[in-house]
C-alpha cells in the first residue's frame, strides 16, 4: 500500500497543493496572496516532478496502483516528467506581472461586467484573481491522471477534471475581456460536446466487451463475434473525443479561436500541457484496450494526420495574428504526432533513428514542440501596442528582432525548431517521425509528411522575415493610426524560462541521444 502511495506521489502532491492553495485563498491577507500562490504552485510542481523522476530512476518502476485504475509505467512517467516540467513553465508565464505593468494578466474581478463602474473600481484597487493558480493545479492533476488511467471511467473523470478549470481560465483575461469570455464559451461548448461523444463511445465499448478495464477489454476482443460491429462504433466515437482534445484537423475548429482569445499564459498551457495529456491518453487507449483492432484504425488515423498537417499548413499561412498562427501550428504538429501514433509500433529495437517505437517518438516530438511553443508564447507576452494591451497582430512584430536582438534570436530559434530546420530539436523530432513511418511500410505517409513539413515551414519563415524587417508601420487600410509597438520588460523568471527553452531546443537538436535513452526506457506500455 505504501508502495502504491509512492507511485501516486506526483498526483497526490499536485492535488494536495491545489487544496492548500484554496486554504491560502481563504486565509492569507490579500497583499501576500499573489506571491504565496505563485510560490506554492511552483513548489508543489517541483516536488511532484522530483517524485516522478525518483520513481522513473528506481528499477521496478512499472506498477498498477489504486485497484487497477491507474498504471504507473514507462510512458506514464515519461509524460508526467514532461508535463510537470512544462507546467512549471506555465506557472512562470502566469505569474508574470512586470510585463503587464505590475498587474497580473488575469481579470480583476470575473463577476463584473466589462466596462462597468464596478470593473473600474476593482481595476483601480489593483485587485487580482489569485484563484487562477489553484485552477491551474487542478487542471494539472487531471492531466496527470488522464494518460495514466487504465479504465475508461477514470479516464472520463480525469478528462473532466482537466477540462473544467481550463474552460474557466480561458475566460479570465484582464484586457479584451469580451473576447476572452467568447473564447471560454466556444471552448466550453465544443469541449463538453467532445466529452459527450467520448462517453457514448465508452458506453458502446462497455456494451460489446462487458468491462471498462483496459486489460479486460483487450482480452475479450478475441472472443467477440465477427457480426458484432458495436465495438467499431465505440472505437470511432472514443477516437473522435480524443482527437478533439488533441486539436487534430477535422475536429480543430476551436483551437485558433481559443488560443487567440485566452490570456497568453493560458494559451501556452493549453497548447503544450493539454496536448501532452491528450497524446498520452490516446496512445494508451489505442494501444492497450483497442490494440487488437489496430488494423482498422491505423490507416484512417494516418489519413487524418495528413489532413491535419495540410489544414495547419495552409490556414496557418493566411493568418495575421501570431496567437492564431501558433494555433494552426499546433494543429499541424498534432498531425505529425498522430502520424507517429498511427504507426502503432510499441517495441523498441534500439536507440538508433528508425528503431524507436511510437511512444518514444511521440514523447520526443512533444518535448521539441513544447519547448518551442512555450518559448514562442512567452515572447508573444512581451509585445505591446501603445495602449499597453498585448498586440499579437503580426504587423506589430515588424522589426521586432532589430529592436530586441536577444528576444529576436530566441524567436528565430523557436520558429526554426517548429519548422523543423536542422540543428534544432524540431528537426530531430520530425526525422524520428518520418523514419518511423518509412521503416513501418508507410513510405507514402513519410513522403507526404516531408512535403507538408516544407509547406508548414513557410508560415514560420514568414514570421522570421517580419522580425528582421526595418520599420514598424501598419499596413495601409488599417484603422490604427501608426501604433507604436513597445516591448515590455520581462521579469527574471520569464527571461530564464525563455533562455531555458532556447537552450533545450538547441541542446536536443545537437545531442538527441541524451533524450533517446530516456525515451527508449519510457517506451514499454504495461497492460
Amino acid at each position, binding site marked *: 500500500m505504501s508502495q502504491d502511495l509512492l507511485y501516486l506521489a506526483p498526483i497526490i502532491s499536485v492535488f494536495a497543493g491545489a487544496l492548500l492553495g484554496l486554504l491560502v485563498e481563504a486565509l492569507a491577507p490579500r497583499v501576500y496572496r499573489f506571491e504565496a500562490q505563485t510560490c506554492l504552485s511552483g513548489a508543489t510542481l517541483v516536488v511532484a516532478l522530483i517524485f516522478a523522476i525518483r520513481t522513473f530512476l528506481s528499477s521496478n518502476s512499472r506498477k498498477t496502483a489504486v485497484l487497477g485504475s491507474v498504471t504507473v509505467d514507462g510512458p506514464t512517467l515519461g509524460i508526467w516528467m514532461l508535463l510537470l516540467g512544462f507546467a512549471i513553465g506555465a506557472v512562470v508565464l502566469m505569474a508574470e506581472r512586470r510585463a503587464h505593468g505590475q498587474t497580473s494578466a488575469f481579470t480583476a474581478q*470575473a*463577476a463584473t*461586467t*466589462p*466596462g462597468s463602474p464596478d470593473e473600474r473600481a476593482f481595476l483601480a484597487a489593483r485587485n487580482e484573481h489569485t484563484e487562477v493558480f489553484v485552477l491551474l493545479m487542478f487542471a494539472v492533476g487531471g492531466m496527470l491522471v488522464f494518460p495514466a488511467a487504465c479504465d475508461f*471511467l477514470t479516464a*472520463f*473523470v480525469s478528462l*473532466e477534471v482537466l477540462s*473544467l478549470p481550463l*474552460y*474557466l481560465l480561458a*475566460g479570465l483575461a484582464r484586457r*479584451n*475581456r*469580451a*473576447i476572452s*469570455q*467568447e*473564447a*471560454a*464559451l*466556444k471552448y*466550453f*461548448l465544443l469541449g*463538453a*460536446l467532445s*466529452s*459527450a*461523444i467520448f*462517453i*457514448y463511445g*465508452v*458506453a*458502446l465499448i*462497455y*456494451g460489446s466487451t*462487458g*468491462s*471498462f478495464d483496459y486489460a479486460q477489454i483487450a482480452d475479450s476482443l478475441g472472443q467477440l463475434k465477427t457480426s458484432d460491429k458495436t465495438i467499431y462504433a465505440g472505437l470511432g466515437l472514443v477516437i473522435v473525443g480524443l482527437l478533439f482534445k488533441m486539436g487534430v484537423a477535422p475536429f480543430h475548429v476551436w483551437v*485558433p*479561436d481559443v488560443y*487567440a*482569445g485566452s490570456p497568453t499564459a493560458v494559451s501556452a498551457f493549453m497548447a503544450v500541457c493539454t496536448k501532452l495529456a491528450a497524446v498520452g491518453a490516446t496512445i494508451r487507449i489505442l494501444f492497450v484496450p483497442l490494440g487488437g483492432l489496430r488494423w482498422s484504425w491505423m490507416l484512417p488515423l494516418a489519413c487524418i494526420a495528413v489532413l491535419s498537417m495540410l489544414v495547419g499548413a495552409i490556414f496557418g499561412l*493566411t*493568418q*495575421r*495574428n501570431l*496567437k*492564431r498562427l501558433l494555433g494552426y501550428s499546433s494543429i499541424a504538429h498534432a498531425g505529425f504526432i498522430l502520424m507517429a501514433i498511427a504507426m502503432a509500433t510499441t517495441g523498441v529495437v534500439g536507440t538508433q533513428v528508425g528503431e524507436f517505437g511510437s511512444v518514444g517518438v511521440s514523447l520526443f516530438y512533444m518535448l521539441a514542440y513544447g519547448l518551442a511553443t512555450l518559448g514562442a508564447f512567452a515572447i508573444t507576452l512581451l509585445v505591446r501596442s501603445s495602449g499597453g494591451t498585448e498586440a*499579437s*497582430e*503580426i*504587423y506589430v512584430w515588424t522589426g521586432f528582432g532589430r529592436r530586441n536582438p536577444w528576444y529576436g534570436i530566441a524567436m528565430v530559434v523557436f520558429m526554426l525548431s517548429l519548422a523543423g530546420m536542422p540543428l534544432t530539436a524540431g528537426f530531430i523530432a520530425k526525422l524520428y517521425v518520418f523514419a518511423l513511418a518509412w521503416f513501418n511500410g508507410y513510405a507514402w505517409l513519410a513522403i507526404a509528411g516531408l512535403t507538408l513539413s516544407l509547406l508548414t515551414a513557410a508560415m514560420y519563415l514568414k514570421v522570421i522575415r517580419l522580425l528582421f524587417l526595418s520599420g514598424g508601420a501598419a*499596413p495601409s*487600410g*488599417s484603422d490604427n493610426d501608426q501604433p507604436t509597438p513597445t516591448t515590455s520588460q520581462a521579469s527574471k523568471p520569464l527571461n530564464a524560462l525563455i533562455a531555458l527553452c532556447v537552450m533545450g531546443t538547441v541542446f536536443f537538436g545537437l545531442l538527441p541521444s541524451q533524450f533517446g535513452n530516456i525515451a527508449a526506457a519510457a517506451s514499454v506500455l504495461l497492460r
Partner: protein
Amino acid sequence: MTSEYLILSAVLFCIGVGGVLIRRNPLVIFMSIELMLNAANLALVTFARARGDLGGQAGAFFVMVCAAAEVVVGLAIIVTVFRSKRSIDIDDMTLLSGAPGAEGGSLA
C-alpha cells in the same frame, strides 16, 4: 428485450447531436449536450442489465456527477457572456471569427 432501450438511447444521442448543430442558443446547445450524456447513461444501464454486471450502473453515476460539475461551470460562463454582451446568440459570437475586422482577423 434490451434492444428497444438501445435504440431509444441512439435516437436520444442523435437528437442531441442535431440540437448542437442546429440550435443557436448556447443554453439549448448545452441542453442538447446533456441529452447526449443521458443517452450514454441509458446505454450504460441497459448494457449493465443485459450482462448482469453492476459496472455500467456505477459508471452512470460517475457520468451524472461529471455532468453536474459541467453545468456549474457552463452556466457560469454563459451568464458572464450574457451580462457583458446582452445577447447569447451563437451567431453574434464573431469577435474571434477570423473574419475581417474581428480580433485576429485574417485580413487585419
